[in-house]
């Protein structure tokens, strides 16, 4: 397995609070990885750092075949390099139709002038239909995204990520607020996506992580506490302590 993303010794503090503490992590291409951890473990900050929203104080992050450093690059540059991000709260553009949402995400030139003079090509239309089919929204293409149900919005957002065709997909709590059936479909979509690219899923819900059936990284106080299969990490005594929050009480 080739390494796609390599984080080493990354730290960041906010007003003296170390949100990420000497974190090192390697993601292969392709790979499906779940990142779990209690509240405040630094899961969101971890994503913010990779996507360029937060600048780390120290450490290196290398991405892709050419080992490009992501540090100092803007959010949009990083996104164009091939890193997509899905937020916890579904953020689609509600005033615009499902088709327009997907079209904006499709991999095409991103400069203002090429966008102004952009003409729909048969290729991108076909790709758009394909994605709509994958996320079960073919019948809703002309509806404003604001009219969709919560679960459909989540899918639309996943569809937009697929349209971006990233090499690395960061997904924040995809199963939040979904019905059991929707969860199952989400698992399928994520697994399928991970066949050709790297997918990092940040999740709270152990049942969902179990269904993903992949390597798990446990974050705690900004660093990696354990790594391995779900069974492996859940039998780790330090992980049990952290999750139960009784590490101090017992000693």
């Amino acid at each position, binding site marked *: 397995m080739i390494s796609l993303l390599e984080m080493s010794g990354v730290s960041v503090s906010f007003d003296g609070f170390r949100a990420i503490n000497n974190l090192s992590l390697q993601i292969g291409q392709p790979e499906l990885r779940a990142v779990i951890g209690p509240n405040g473990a630094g899961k969101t900050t971890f994503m913010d750092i990779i996507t360029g929203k937060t600048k780390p104080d120290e450490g290196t992050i290398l991405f892709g075949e050419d080992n490009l450093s992501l540090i100092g690059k*803007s*959010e949009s*540059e990083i*996104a164009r390099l091939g890193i997509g991000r899905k937020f916890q709260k579904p953020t689609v553009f509600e*005033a615009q139709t499902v088709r327009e949402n997907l079209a904006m995400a499709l991999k095409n030139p*991103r400069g203002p002038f090429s*966008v*102004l003079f*952009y003409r729909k090509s048969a290729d991108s239309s076909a790709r758009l239909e394909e994605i709509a089919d994958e996320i079960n929204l073919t019948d809703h293409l002309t509806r404003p995204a604001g009219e969709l149900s919560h679960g459909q919005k989540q899918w639309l957002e996943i569809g937009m990520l697929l349209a*971006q065709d990233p090499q690395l997909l960061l997904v924040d709590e995809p199963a939040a607020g979904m019905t059991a059936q929707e969860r199952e479909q989400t698992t399928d979509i994520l697994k399928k996506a991970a066949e050709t690219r790297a997918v990092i899923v940040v999740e709270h819900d152990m049942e969902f992580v179990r269904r993903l059936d992949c390597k798990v990284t446990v974050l705690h106080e900004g660093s990696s506490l354990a790594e391995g299969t779900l069974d492996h990490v859940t039998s780790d005594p330090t992980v049990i302590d952290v999750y139960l929050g009784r590490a101090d009480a017992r000693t």
Partner: protein
Amino acid sequence: MKNTFIARNPSVLWFLAALGLFTALVTIASEATGAGLISTSFVKTLGKTLCLCLIAIAMDVVWGYCGILSLGHFAFFGIGGYSIGMWLMYARTEIIVTESLAGRTIPATPQEVSDAIGNQIFGVVGSSEFPLIWAFADSFWMQMAFVILIPGLLALVFGWLAFRSRVTGVYLSILTQAMTLALALYLFQNDSGLRGNNGLSGLQNLPGMDDVSQATVSLAFFLASAAALALGYLLFAWITDSKLGNIIQAIRDDEARVRFLGYHVESYKLFVFTITAIIAGIAGALYYPQAGIINPAEIAPIASIYLAVWVAIGGRGRLYGAVLGAAFVSLLSSWFTGGGAPNINLGFYTVQWVDWWLVLLGLSFVLVTLYAPKGIGGLFDKLVRKS
């Protein structure tokens, strides 16, 4: 036919038809054609209104579509007016001075002519020297280029600095207010080179066209304003209909998300800010020859706030809404403040509309914001959907 520009934007056709009809009616009824049903001064008012509609659709694109509440677009409007005003004033004064010097036995040297023109223009601020910014005032084409270049460059530099630092929301609005205020205060100074608070005047008199009556001139400007509005409307309808239109609306709704899609949000904002500033400059260049005078008070911060009020009342995010808002409110405003509305005598108090109009405007702004957030244009949408 299903997916053409017009099919996707039926309002463009309706708008152009309505504007064409209106223009034809005014032309037929104007004094220039002999019918004389509409006075020349009212033709000017209508022509000016069309220019205000043009800057209003620019404002709608920058605010209603892209979400940047710029409270400084009237600065660009004013710069457009000053640019063309400088040429109008210079060229006309030059003709007058040359005529008056022609009778002398010894022909005047170019220096004497220049001094005499300077004296005429700047005597009012106690000077006769031409400031550096008047270097190209004798060239119509240079000043026309400035109508586009100066607002464009100012918007580009200002926008680049503001957007690059990720100034958004109310802070950006305050910054744009500061820009237009600073410009107005600078122009108020006598040594600003633009005649201080006197501004530029006599702009309604076109150089070398003394034989042409004001009725004809005003109709020509009215038609030019209508053409500019039509072209501006088409330009903005095309921009907002393009994929760029989708992106800027997405920036309005969630700019962080657009960044993570890989779009450089700042470039988009800069593009919209600059192109709308250029259109505002063009609108100003057509407006002030009809108004006849421009002075720094025109670009006071309140003017840009009015612009936002027009667009809000007309309905943000739809171009015809901005046109309706600007036309409706500015015409109503000149009716009330121009003594058109009869004062109401309540016995113990007389409601003077000159003073009370602003209260009425403020009240209707509050009511629109509360009860019709989509403005007059939103009511139109409801009618269309019902039928």
